[in-house]
């Protein structure tokens, strides 16, 4: 690292998502090192950060004219714990680490640079719930003796969700039941989700299994609402596959997990 690149950098995240990089100092004398002192002052009802820099070369110190940066904050700025280049370098290293993480995960789609400020703001909501935690499906007598009993259906519950996504990103709702769950002998459980307008697209009817399958796709930013009939209507169907396999009074309980996740 050369002298110039060793200029102290300071990233200060403040309330309101502002972040400030203190502008670089004058060139460092050959063989010199930076020593930094910082303080926070309240002036005219606003907070300022005052930066004083020293260059040292051996035992000699050279004062650099102090400069003041007004920062946008809404409340008290904690004073810097220590002056000196070591603390500043730690801040710099942390900044490098944070930026590296964004780059590694590919989440930073564009970079904006300026002399004085970089702002980063990510807000994400991803919440799903159901209007009822319990559903009962029962195969009962057919309408006519000799007839196959009707499939048991339930469409009384809704999946409700709130979602905010980045531009070009969508989410989906998947359904799965726990390992070991099964339908009664001779039956199968199917599920169809029917979302409201702007709440995604139905993925059609699925055969519920231990593998998560999409039931709603293309969910962007939305809030389904919380009314009793708001959201994606969940249509469960207990279908008879083989009449001769049915077992009277057989009862099975299954736990269906609905997950709202990025597509």
């Amino acid at each position: 690292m050369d002298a110039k690149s060793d200029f102290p950098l300071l990233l200060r995240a403040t309330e309101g998502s502002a972040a400030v990089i203190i502008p670089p100092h004058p060139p460092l004398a050959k063989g010199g090192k930076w020593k930094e002192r910082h303080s926070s002052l309240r002036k005219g009802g606003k907070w300022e950060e005052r930066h004083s820099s020293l260059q040292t070369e051996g035992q000699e110190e050279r004062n650099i004219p102090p400069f003041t940066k007004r920062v946008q904050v809404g409340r008290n700025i904690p004073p810097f714990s220590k002056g000196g280049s070591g603390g500043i370098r730690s801040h710099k290293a942390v900044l490098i680490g944070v930026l590296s993480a964004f780059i590694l995960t590919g989440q930073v789609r564009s970079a904006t640079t300026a002399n004085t400020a970089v702002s980063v703001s990510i807000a994400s909501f991803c919440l799903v719930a159901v209007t009822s935690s319990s559903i009962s499906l029962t195969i009962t007598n057919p309408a006519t003796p000799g007839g196959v009993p009707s499939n048991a259906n339930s469409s009384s519950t809704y999946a409700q969700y709130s979602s905010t996504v980045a531009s070009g990103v969508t989410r989906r709702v998947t359904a799965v039941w726990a390992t070991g769950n099964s339908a009664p002998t001779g039956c199968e459980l199917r599920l169809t989700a029917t979302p409201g307008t702007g709440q995604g697209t139905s993925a059609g009817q699925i055969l519920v299994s231990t593998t998560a399958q999409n039931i709603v796709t293309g969910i962007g930013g939305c809030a389904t609402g919380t009314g009793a009939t708001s959201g994606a209507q969940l249509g469960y169907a207990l279908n008879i596959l083989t009449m001769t396999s049915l077992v009277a009074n057989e009862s099975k309980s299954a736990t269906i997990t609905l997950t709202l996740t990025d597509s």
Partner: protein
Amino acid sequence: MKHLKAILIGTVFGLGFVGLTFAVSTTTQTVVMQVNAICVLAVTGNPSTLSVSAPTTGGQTPVSGSSTSTYAQYTSTVAASTNRKITAKWEAGDAAPAGCALKLTATPAGGNQGTGAGQISMTSTAQDIVTAIKSCATGTGGSSGAQLSYALEVSDATALVAGESKSATVTMTLTDAA
């Protein structure tokens, strides 16, 4: 080392921050699925009138009347290792014409629809006509189910009374096998 530590902290912090964009939310529902015990039986209608008619040749025994136009239709679900049966009887006081006997044979389609118990002579005591019925649905078509074959047989030609007519109510019951 100090810088490496700081970079590591920053990376972890950054990953945690980025992780918010891979948000996942879950919820669960408990679905209880049950198959009720089902035991329902019907017949497709009443048999045609059973009449003892004249033989084709004088001296022969009169011809028995018969009907095979009706079916017993049923839907059944049974517990494991259990089965059902169909019994038939007529009411106390019912009787065939003098010198005659009413016979009944049920012919199920097989499989879980059960096994025919052979021909019975109708009495006021319930007798099996189909056994070993398991979970099944015979169907509801015009010829679905166990075919019911009624026969009014002449048991004593000397006891026949010309013009005698009797009506009997036959009751069939689908029930658990003992």
